[in-house]
């Protein structure tokens, strides 16, 4: 190995290196800082992410394989990394005040988020089952700890434990699938796997391996039947972490799913049937169970299951439009879901939890601006134009119908009509009920900035989707 090759590898993975080095530096600095210097950590972490974003921007537009073809820096990865950066920065902005209120201010919180970010970045760039595994575990281990960060609260502890146990099992299943792949084909590279699937689709060992890998990945995106952890973990985790988990790790999981299953060779096989079944059940379960939730975090957990189902329809469609539709969906979902979570987070103040849907009654009277923003996010999540959520769904449907899956498209829209019910139920509580106990939203400048950015994304992409659509279409791999 020559120096120039090494240099090229380092360059290709520069963003990941920036994040990891930055996280390590903050870990040390965090121990040296006197108490009450939380803002330094927030801005330091944001600076690290921005530096990584800058590095990513410098790399954008070229395709660079690295580390003996286990890793690739391409436009597809850049798109997903942008989603991760967005989600992470917004989570940092939301965390400052929330961490103060919950008493969980410590440098580890920010450092773990940064490590989780680096894990997701590796997932987006990985083109080998082993490097996927490394990224997946890095991300997962950090989120396990973050879930249990409310040390004195039982719900949080229970959620963390549940998440570790189930997550460990899922990873084990995934790893078992990887070992089977290696046993059958002698390679762990994705294109090798795709070639094997295309030539010997009937091989029972390989089929078992694919099923195991699907199971492991479905767990990460919270797809049925591997969704059981989602409501408990979302409810128990600190709300900022819930917001983060509902967007970024989910997007990372989809990045891997797209890479594994939408290789042109795999698309030719019948693997889509498995995904189609998962998509339908996921969306159905998420939409119907969300109807009866009283806790807004649990409701959003089921809503995120339903959205994973809808995005999964894009995976079923496949092809360039299918891939682009999933990518655009995840980007838009990041904006609107972080937006709605931001409103949930800022309701937490003093003794007020803001977790029961009833806590929001009459919000339109006491805080009309906030209520209007919630209305925007909720209608976007329900997929009503002119919000971005509509365009996300629309493009997935175009991709589906283009492939001739009209029946699936009909199922998808009918289920999203069901889902619309629980979103507009919250709107009803906000606008059509008399105010009860007065909430005192914790509106800090950084929270306001988050709201502004997410609202701009939610309405902006809805009204002017052309640029974002083109970005997603240009970032499709293997183009």
């Amino acid at each position, binding site marked *: 190995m020559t120096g120039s090759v090494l240099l090229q590898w380092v360059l290709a993975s520069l963003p990941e290196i920036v994040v990891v080095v930055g996280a390590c530096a903050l870990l040390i600095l965090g121990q040296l800082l006197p108490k009450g210097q939380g803002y330094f950590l927030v801005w330091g972490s944001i600076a690290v992410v921005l530096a990584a974003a800058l590095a990513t921007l410098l790399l954008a537009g070229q395709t660079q394989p690295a580390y003996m073809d286990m890793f690739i820096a391409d436009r597809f990865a850049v798109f997903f990394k942008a989603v991760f950066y967005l989600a992470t920065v917004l989570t940092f902005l939301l965390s400052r005040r929330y961490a103060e209120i919950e008493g969980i201010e410590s440098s580890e919180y920010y450092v773990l988020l940064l490590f989780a970010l680096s894990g997701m970045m590796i997932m987006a760039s990985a083109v080998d089952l082993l490097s996927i595994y490394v990224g997946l575990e890095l991300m997962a281990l950090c989120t396990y700890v973050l879930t249990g960060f409310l040390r004195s609260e039982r719900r949080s502890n229970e959620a963390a434990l549940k998440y570790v146990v189930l997550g460990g099992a899922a990873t084990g299943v995934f790893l078992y699938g990887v070992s089977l792949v290696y046993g059958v084909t002698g390679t762990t590279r994705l294109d090798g796997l795709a070639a094997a699937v295309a030539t010997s689709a009937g091989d029972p060992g390989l089929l078992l391996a694919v099923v195991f890998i699907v199971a492991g990945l479905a767990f990460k995106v919270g797809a049925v039947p591997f969704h059981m952890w989602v409501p408990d973990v979302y409810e128990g985790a600190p709300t900022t972490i819930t917001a983060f988990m509902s967007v970024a790790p989910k997007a990372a999981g989809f990045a891997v799913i797209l890479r594994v299953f939408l290789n042109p060779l795999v698309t030719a096989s019948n693997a889509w049937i498995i995904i189609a079944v998962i998509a339908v059940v996921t969306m159905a379960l998420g939409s119907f169970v969300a109807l009866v939730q009283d806790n807004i975090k649990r409701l959003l957990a089921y809503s995120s299951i339903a959205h994973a189902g809808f995005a999964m329809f894009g995976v079923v469609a496949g092809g360039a439009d299918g891939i682009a539709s999933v990518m655009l969906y995840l980007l838009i979902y990041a904006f609107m879901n972080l937006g709605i979570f931001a409103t949930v987070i800022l309701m937490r103040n003093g003794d007020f939890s803001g977790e029961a849907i009833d806590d929001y009654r009459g919000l*339109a009277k006491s805080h*009309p601006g906030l209520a209007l923003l919630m*209305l925007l996010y909720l*209608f976007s999540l329900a997929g*009503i*134009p*002119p919000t971005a959520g*509509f365009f996300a769904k*629309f*493009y997935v*449907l*175009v991709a589906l*119908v*283009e492939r001739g899956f*009209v029946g699936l*498209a*009909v199922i998808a*829209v*009918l289920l*999203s*009509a069901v889902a*619309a*019910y629980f979103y*507009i*139920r919250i*709107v*009803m509580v906000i*606008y*059509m009920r008399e105010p009860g106990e007065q909430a005192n939203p914790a509106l800090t400048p950084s929270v306001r900035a988050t709201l502004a950015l997410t609202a701009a994304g939610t309405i902006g992409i809805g009204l002017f*989707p*052309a640029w974002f*659509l*083109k970005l997603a*279409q240009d970032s499709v791999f293997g183009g």
Partner: protein
Amino acid sequence: MALLSLIVFTPAVGALVLAFIRNEQTVRWTALGFTALDFVLAVMMLAGFDATTHAMQFTEARPWVPALGITYALGVDGISVLFVFLTALLGWICVLASWTAIESKVKEFMISLLVMQSLMLGVFCALDLFLFYVFWEAMLIPMYIIIGVWGGEGRVYAAFKFFLYTLAGSLLFLVGVIVLYLQGGQTFDIIALSNQDIPFSVQSWLFLAFLVAFAVKVPMVPVHTWLPDAHVQAPTAGSIILAAVLLKMGAYGFLRFSLPMLPEASVYYSTAMLMLSALAIVYGGLLALAQDDLKKLVAYSSISHMGFVTLGIFTLNLRGLEGGILQMFNHGVTTGALFLFVGLIYERTHTRSIGAYGGLMKLAPVYTSFLALFALSSMALPGTNSFVGELLVLSGGFAANPAITAIAVLGALLGAAYLLGMYRKVALGPVRLPGGAKVRDVNARELIAILPLAVLVFWVGLYPKPFLGIIDASVKHLLVRVHGEGSGQ
């Protein structure tokens, strides 16, 4: 000059301006100012409209999402121009109708009303299917809020029902739109799609998908059950908008999409559609006959009257279609006015029960005279607008299918029964008022809201030529498209 964009977005700009105004009275006047300005613009459009051609006029087109062939395209032809005018007219009438009826959150109400106004105008002007869908679906948001926040006691249930019915219908329409987009050469251009030849099997499915969306909006029996709830619970302005404009959109959808884009399927399903229309006419009329609630009565009469509209459209001949379209306009004027009248009396006495009233004629002679006028118009008395419309529809209907049309005539009789019955109980006989309430006659503000509608009743009733002239060329073009060249009589 982008006149249509101006017309569509003037109310939206008004809504934006309102957000910065605190004083309630200023809010009312500003809302009135913007809707009146919009009406002036609509009159300018009507004045500049060339009725001799079926082509789209005042067209604008700008690329919006080029990768998917979506453009921001607006334009009006003889069919849509009438409804742009009607919507703009009712805009300021609705503001006047809510002047004192809305007591809480006036600003929020006016903003919702103006946003709604923009979206409705957008629906009638859109020449791009995607743009149309965006306007069409986005209307759910302000309407849900209007019914749910400012409505009566059962408003939440009514708002939900309205939202979910319409959403479920429109989502199937969305899938249909996407199929049409891919079948018709990856374009959302309504004009281009209206000239595509799509295989009959596809047309047939698309027709059914479109039917679900449009039938819910019209509404046709059996998907009409959201309407009475929504109408009864909505505030007066909401009811006027619902009856006068929203219901028209279903029928407009048939005219703009089903007929020109799916001509063979339209012919194939026309008899079934005629039967459903006749069913709506008779069933709606019978239900209206049994109501004691004034608003419910008008709401069910709407179902019956919209049956005449769909009956006219699916006769697929010149007289029927022109009658159907004219009847859409008439229904907007007459039923809009009737809801306004129910709102006026409800504002004074806070009850809508017909049985609670009596002898109103002696207390409020102006009110009852105008009520009589609009009730007579609603039952299609000769000399009023609906007579012309219904006559055309029925004569078209007898040419298309005499048996079904004969049943529909029964509906006209029912109309006379429930409207005259209502008028007799409310206006005539000994004076009776609920709970010792006092009633004052209409004031100047209310009279200003009523007068243009009364003028239109007589204008269309006595001299319908200008109105029929506007739609004539477009309808003939539509018929050529449906039946093929040389058959347009």
